[in-house]
C-alpha cells in the first residue's frame, strides 16, 4: 500500500521537538506516525543523549538501537542555542511551526528566552507543550524527572507485587510513556482549538501528575474509604480487586484468572476445598481463597485449566512470553511489527503505531536521523540563514 498517496491524519503539521530520552521523544514519535513532520532540535555536540544510551549494547552504526526505536520517522536539526546567530535561526523555524515540545528542567527555556511568552511573540498560533518531572513549583521542581524516581514518589510501587514484598516498580518506564501519550492528546486538542480561535496554547504536564492520574481509581477509593488499598498477601494483581483476580502457577506454567464469580469458578474447577466460599467473601477472604486456588491450580497443566474455564466463557488465559506470542498466527495476521531499513545491509524490526485509520496501519519506515542530518536542507527550505535575516 502506498501511503504517500493517502494522507495521514496529521499531514501538514510541523512539530519541533526540543526533547531527549523518552517522554518527549515518544510524543514526537506518535505525532510523526500519525503524519506530522517532526524535527528534533539537538545540540551539535552529542545531541539527544539517548543516541549513546544502549540497551544490551545494541547499536546501529553510531546510534543506539534504543534511539532508533524512539526516533524513527523524524528529522534532526542541530543548533547551539547559546549562539545568538543559531538561536535566531531556530526562532525563525519556530515562527513556521505549529507545535513545539520540550522536556528541559524548569527554567532552562526561560533562560534561553524560548519560554511560552517569548515564543508567542514569534508565532501567535503556536501550540507550546512542556514536560517536567514534578511541576514547575514546589520543593520537587528541581529534582531529576527520572521514571523510577517518579514511580517511587507517586505511590505506584504499592500496587504491584504481594503484600509482604518490597514496593514493586513497573518494569517499564510507565511515567515517561504515559506522560508522552498525554502530551500527544493535549497537543492534538490544542490544534483543534487553535484552528478555531487562531490563538496560541500552552500545555504543561509533569511525570508525577501523569502517574497520579494513572492511579485515579486508587486515589478516589482511598479518598472515599480513608484506607490505603492493600495488595493481597498472595497472587496479587490489583489492590482493589477481590479473589480470584491474579496469576497462578500450574504444573507447567502460569494462568491468569480475572473477574470470575465464585459460583462459576466452583462449578468449573469442581473442587470441594472451594465449597465454603461465596461471592460475598471475595474481599473479606481474598487471601484465603487465593491460597486455596493456588494449591488447586498447581496440580494440573495450564492447558487443562484454561480449557475448563474458557469452555464456560470465564475470564482466564494462560501466560505467554514474547516468543510464544510472536509464534502465533495472529501475531503475523495482525502485522504487529515492521522492518526499518537503515541501508542495504542494516535493518531492524520494531513495533508500529497501535492506531489504525480507515482500516490502514500507520507504518513509519523512515529510519532515525543522524545528528544534524537535515540541518542544511531545513535551513534552505525555510530560509533560516541568520546572516540574511
Amino acid at each position: 500500500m502506498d501511503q504517500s498517496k493517502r494522507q495521514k491524519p496529521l499531514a501538514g503539521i510541523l512539530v519541533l521537538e526540543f526533547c531527549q530520552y523518552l517522554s518527549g521523544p515518544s510524543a514526537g514519535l506518535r505525532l510523526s506516525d500519525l503524519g506530522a513532520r517532526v524535527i528534533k532540535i539537538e545540540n551539535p555536540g552529542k545531541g539527544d543523549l539517548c543516541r549513546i544510551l544502549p540497551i544490551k549494547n545494541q547499536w546501529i552504526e553510531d546510534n543506539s538501537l534504543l534511539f532508533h526505536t524512539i526516533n524513527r520517522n523524524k528529522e534532526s536539526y542541530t543548533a547551539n542555542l547559546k549562539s545568538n546567530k543559531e538561536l535566531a535561526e531556530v526562532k525563525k523555524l519556530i515562527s513556521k511551526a505549529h507545535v513545539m515540545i520540550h522536556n528541559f528542567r524548569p527554567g532552562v527555556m526561560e533562560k534561553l528566552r524560548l519560554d511560552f511568552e517569548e515564543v508567542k511573540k514569534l508565532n501567535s498560533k503556536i501550540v507550546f507543550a512542556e514536560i517536567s518531572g514534578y511541576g514547575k513549583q514546589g520543593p520537587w521542581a528541581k529534582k531529576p524527572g527520572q521514571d523510577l524516581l517518579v514511580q517511587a514518589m507517586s505511590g505506584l510501587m504499592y500496587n504491584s507485587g504481594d503484600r509482604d514484598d518490597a514496593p514493586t516498580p513497573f518494569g517499564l518506564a510507565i511515567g515517561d510513556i504515559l506522560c508522552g501519550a498525554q502530551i500527544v492528546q493535549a497537543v492534538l486538542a490544542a490544534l483543534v482549538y487553535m484552528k478555531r480561535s487562531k490563538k496560541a496554547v500552552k500545555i504543561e504536564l509533569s511525570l508525577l501528575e501523569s502517574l497520579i492520574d494513572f492511579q485515579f481509581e486508587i486515589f478516589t477509593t482511598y479518598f472515599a474509604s480513608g484506607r490505603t488499598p492493600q495488595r493481597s498477601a498472595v497472587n496479587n494483581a490489583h489492590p482493589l480487586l477481590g479473589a480470584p483476580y491474579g496469576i497462578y502457577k500450574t504444573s507447567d506454567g502460569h494462568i491468569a484468572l480475572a473477574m470470575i464469580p465464585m459460583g462459576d469458578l466452583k462449578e468449573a474447577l469442581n473442587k470441594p476445598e472451594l465449597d465454603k466460599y461465596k461471592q460475598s467473601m471475595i474481599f473479606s477472604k481474598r487471601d484465603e481463597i487465593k491460597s486455596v486456588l493456588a494449591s488447586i491450580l498447581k496440580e494440573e497443566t495450564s492447558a487443562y485449566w484454561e480449557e475448563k474455564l474458557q469452555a464456560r466463557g470465564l475470564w482466564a488465559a494462560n501466560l505467554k512470553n514474547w516468543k510464544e506470542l510472536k509464534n502465533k498466527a495472529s501475531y503475523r495476521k495482525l502485522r504487529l511489527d515492521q522492518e526499518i531499513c537503515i541501508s542495504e545491509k542494516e535493518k531492524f524490526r520494531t513495533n508500529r503505531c497501535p492506531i489504525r485509520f480507515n482500516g490502514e496501519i500507520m507504518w513509519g519506515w523512515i529510519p532515525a536521523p543522524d545528528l544534524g542530518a537535515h540541518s542544511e536542507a531545513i535551513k534552505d527550505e525555510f530560509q533560516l540563514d541568520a546572516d540574511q535575516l
Partner: protein
Amino acid sequence: MKLLEGITVIDFSQFLSGPSASLRLADFGARVIKIEKPGSGDICRQLYVSEVEVANESTLFHTINRNKESFKADLKKEKDKKRVYSLIKQADVVMHNFRPGVMEKLGFSYDQVKEINTGIIYAGISGYGDKGEWKDLPGQDLLLQSLSGLPYLNGESTKLPTPMGISVVDILAGTHLAQGILAALVKRDSTGEGSLVQVSMLESALDFQFEVFTTFLNDGEEPPQRSEKNHAHSYLAAPYGVYETTDGFLALAMTSIPKLGELLGISQLEEYHDPARWFTQRDFIKDILADHLKKETTDYWLHILEPADIWCAKVFNIEELIAQPGYKVLEMEMIVKTSKGHEIKTTRCPIRINGEKLESSVGAPFLGEHNDSIAVEFGLKN
C-alpha cells in the same frame, strides 16, 4: 479553558478503556453522552470490583464517568434506535468498545453510521483486533497483560510472573483511542472528512513495551531476565532498583557504581570501573548495596546522595505522598457532585492549559438522567 468546545461525543463504551478516553475528551471540553441500556446501564455501575460505593454504585464508575451525560436507550427497539440515530446525526464522534461484530448487529456499524452522518469520526477499541484466533476472546486487562508478556518484566526472578497492579492496558488503549479521535478531528478540520479509528488492547500492550520488545526482536529473541535482587527493569544495570532502609525504602536509578561506592563508603564497589559489569554482575552488586543500605534511614542516605546529584528518591505510599508539600502544590484533588448531591473527592485531569487546571465539578450521571433534556435539545421524537 475548553479546547474542544462544541464537539459532541456519543459514547457506547463500558468499563474502563473506552470511558477513560471519553473522560479525557470531556476534560478537554467536549460534551460526552453515554448511551446506556435500560436496567443495568454501563456494567461498571454495578461491577463488584470495589468494596467502596457511592450512591449504591461503584466508586470506580463515578470516577471514570464524571462530567458526562447519560442517555438510556434499548438498542434492540426500533423507537430507541431511531432516537440514537438522530443524536448521531448531530454529533462529531461515535465511540464504542464492544467485541467485533456487536455494533454491526445493533445497526451501528461504521458504514451504517456514515450513512446518517458522512463526516463522523467513528472510534472503537477491541481486545485483539478484528481478525485472528483471539478476536472473540474477552478484552480484559489482566488477560491482555498475560498474553503480551508484561508479567515477565516485573518482580524478582524468584517470584511468580508479576502483573502490573493497575489496569494499564485498559488505560493505554483508552489513551491511544483518544489520540486517534483527536488526530481525526484535526484531519476533519483540514479536509472535511471523517475517519474510522481503531485501537486494540493487544496493540496498545505491545506499544507500551516498544523499547524492550524491539530489543527482543533484534537480539535473537532472548527472553527478558528479571534481576534476582531488588528488581526494577530487566534491561537496566545495577543499581537500578528499590532498597530497604531501617525505616522505609529508597529508589536508586542509573548511577556510576564506583561513585556510589565512594559516597556510601562501600570500598568493594569502587573497583567496578567497567560499566559492562554493572549489568553482568548486577545481582551481586545489588546484594552488596542492599546489605549496606538497610543499616540507616532513608533520609540519612538521601542527605548523602542528593547533594552529589545521584538519582534517588524516597518511596511513598499514597498516604505518605499526599502529606508532602510537593504533592499539595500540584492541587491534584477536586470534588465532584452528582445531581442528587453526593460529593466525591477525586483527581483532576493532569494537564494544564494556559496555566489553568482543567476542572469540572459535574459528577457522573445516573442512568438515563439526561434523556429528557437531550430529547428536547436534539429534537428527538418519542
